[in-house]
């Protein structure tokens, strides 16, 4: 059976030494050499600890990567996400043969080229054109290949006017554009892309994402894509690996991997919950118990497709017979502008339900799909009552959630894939009439 696997990592591990290389290095080296001579195991590898940044460990050695195994099929676009220090860069360094793993093997059937940090190897005294040749060659192209593509590269970079000027006169943005242009025109079997899309202005970023889409979808290239930008990962990849503390924590469908990642990322859980009534937000009348976000199927989530309905539930304890309390929430965008607010009060059975008290109320609001624009949002929650007007609690930034747009031709934008304006993106009704008026008619 012919397998379609182009790259396979088997139990890859990498150990780094913490602290200064210098004092004690010679003694460690001599010790290690002595063990090797006697045919024993490296004495320093026994005490290696896992890669957890925040806690202080006993050992000077840590596993930056630990027992990483995965496969990539030919033509697949694989995303790799993880917090800073989770081992992404180390993995890329091993994949691009900059350093060796301490353990394990990576086998590949194709040439790997990396698009790491563009601009590496630019010489400031040489012209843009000369640098394109040099950079291309560093990245593994032959002179003939570059010559064939030089016009395309210059055109893509948008630096035509400056191409015969030394690079030291370029603005930093121009350097990045030129470097990305070279890298984007590489044709390796496997392309490794790391955070390159985070550079340049908005217009260029759009162009870069578009080019990445062409490479991965149009040209059928195998791509390993590393990013913090969940929207880019969502757009470009089908399968994603989540690295946590140097281990593969999740390997599967991108949308699920991103949910998994966000859940494990501090403060990004789709729920918040208090178990001690005395420390929960509120006062003698009302205490907040929990707030959570669910999807249509009742799963806790904080990433939603732009077309999906969201269900926000506010649970609170109400001891108060005198007033009829109402839960309130605000949805704020990234610039902390309140997009809209809503109030439990509008529920038809509000008065009737609130006749009771000394109970926990769980009030859920459906926020329909095709209402919010893509981006991240925060939720403010309050509980209060009218007549007399009183606020029992008000909590800012309780939860955050994200709306993404997979640009699959669904939702408000239809088949248009460019930037869509507006703070909101409601699906509105349109009617069309065909009339037999003439243009000149009154």
């Amino acid at each position: 059976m012919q397998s379609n696997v182009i790259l396979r990592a088997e139990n890859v591990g990498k150990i780094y030494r913490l602290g200064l290389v210098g004092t004690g290095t010679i003694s460690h080296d001599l010790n290690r050499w002595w063990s090797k001579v006697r045919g024993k195991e490296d004495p320093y590898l026994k005490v290696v600890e896992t890669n957890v940044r925040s806690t202080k460990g006993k050992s000077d050695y840590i596993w930056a990567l630990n027992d990483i195994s995965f496969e990539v099929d030919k033509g697949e676009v694989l995303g790799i996400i993880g917090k800073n220090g989770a081992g992404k860069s180390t993995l890329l360094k091993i994949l691009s043969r900059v350093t060796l793993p301490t353990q394990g093997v990576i086998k590949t059937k194709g040439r790997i080229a990396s698009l790491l940090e563009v601009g590496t190897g630019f010489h400031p005294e040489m012209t843009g054109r000369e640098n394109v040749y040099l950079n291309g060659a560093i990245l593994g192209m032959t002179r003939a290949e570059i010559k064939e593509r030089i016009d395309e590269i210059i055109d893509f970079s948008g630096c035509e006017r400056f191409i015969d000027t030394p690079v030291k006169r370029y603005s930093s943005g121009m350097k990045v554009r030129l470097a990305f242009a070279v890298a984007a025109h590489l044709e390796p079997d496997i392309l490794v892309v790391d955070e390159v899309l985070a550079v340049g202005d908005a217009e260029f970023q759009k162009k870069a994402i578009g080019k990445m889409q062409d490479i991965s979808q149009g040209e059928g290239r195998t791509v390993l894509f590393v990013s913090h930008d969940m929207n880019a990962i969502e757009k470009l990849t089908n399968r994603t690996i989540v690295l946590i503390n140097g281990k593969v924590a999740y390997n599967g469908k991108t949308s699920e991997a991103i949910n998994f990642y966000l859940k494990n990322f501090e403060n990004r859980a789709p729920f918040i919950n208090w178990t001690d009534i005395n420390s929960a937000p509120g006062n003698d009348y009302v205490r907040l118990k929990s707030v959570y976000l669910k999807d249509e199927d009742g799963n806790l989530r904080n990433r939603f497709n732009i077309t999906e309905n969201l269900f926000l539930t506010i649970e609170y304890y109400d001891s108060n017979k005198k007033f009829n309390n109402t839960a309130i929430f605000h949805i704020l965008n990234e610039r902390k502008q309140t997009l809209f607010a809503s109030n439990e009060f509008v529920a038809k059975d509000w008065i009737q339900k609130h006749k009771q008290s000394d109970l926990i109320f769980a009030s859920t609001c459906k926020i329909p799909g095709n209402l919010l624009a893509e981006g991240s949002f925060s939720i403010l929650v309050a509980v209060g009552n009218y007549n007399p007007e009183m606020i029992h609690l008000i909590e800012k930034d309780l939860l955050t959630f994200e709306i993404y747009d997979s640009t699959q031709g669904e939702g408000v934008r239809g088949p248009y894939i460019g930037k869509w304006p507006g703070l909101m993106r409601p699906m509105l009704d349109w009617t069309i009439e065909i009339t037999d008026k003439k243009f000149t008619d009154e």
Partner: protein
Amino acid sequence: MKTTEENWLYTISSKKKLIDFNFKEIWRYRDLLVLFVKRDVITLYKQTILGPLWYFLQPLFTSLIFTLIFNNLADIPTGDGIPNFLFNLAGVTTWNYFKDCLIGTSDTFKKNENIFGKVYFPRVIMPMSVVVSNLLKYTIQLVLFVGFYLYFKILSDDGYNLMPQLRVFLFPVLVLLMAMLGLGFGMIITSMTTKYRDLKFLIQFGVQLLMYGSAVMYPMSYFKDKLPDYYWLIEWNPIAIIVEAFRTMVFDNTEINTAMLVYASIISCLIFLFGLVIFNRTEKSFIDTI
């Protein structure tokens, strides 16, 4: 799955083989070598007024000073019928090629840490490009030497006895030996300084001192007469043999025999191979320790 096991293009693992050269790969990156050389050449004298004239000025002034100090002041004889200046020019040019190769390659890893840390290409391309671009410089400086040689032979009336020897056809071999020695030592030093930087300080004045032990400004025979007890230092120094051999080709006054040349060739090859092996072992993971 088993059937495809053998089809892997390459594997990345922690195992290091003692000798593991991928010549096919180096060949595939030959364009990079050319481009690095081009980069070195065109950027060296950018934004200078004299430009490539600097290629001439360095050996010219060094030779003039040497003539003044060592010949006129210290009275070191350079042999019958050989102009002092030309003698020094021959020594300086040749020594400089070796020195430039050595110094240029001896900080390969440190200097290129940035680029080596990001992209893979056969690392050996880098020191090789240094050797090649220095060869261009050496060629240009040889033109200067030939110019003065012809001047002293034809135009000068001082009765110099200049006659190139048939051995001059061995000149490319000398260049190769120098390149191998410089590159070999350079690769050893850069590999050893990735973890412990001590050698870096040694090389600064070490090269300076080595020049005095390499028969650059005196003939080997003179040293033998004056300091016979220390002659072995010069006699066993392959650079001294090479520098002297170059003068033998153009002046015919010195005592280089075939045995010495064979000895220098063997040492050069050994140093070069040793350098390649240690460089090759270091390049795989130096980025973790540098």
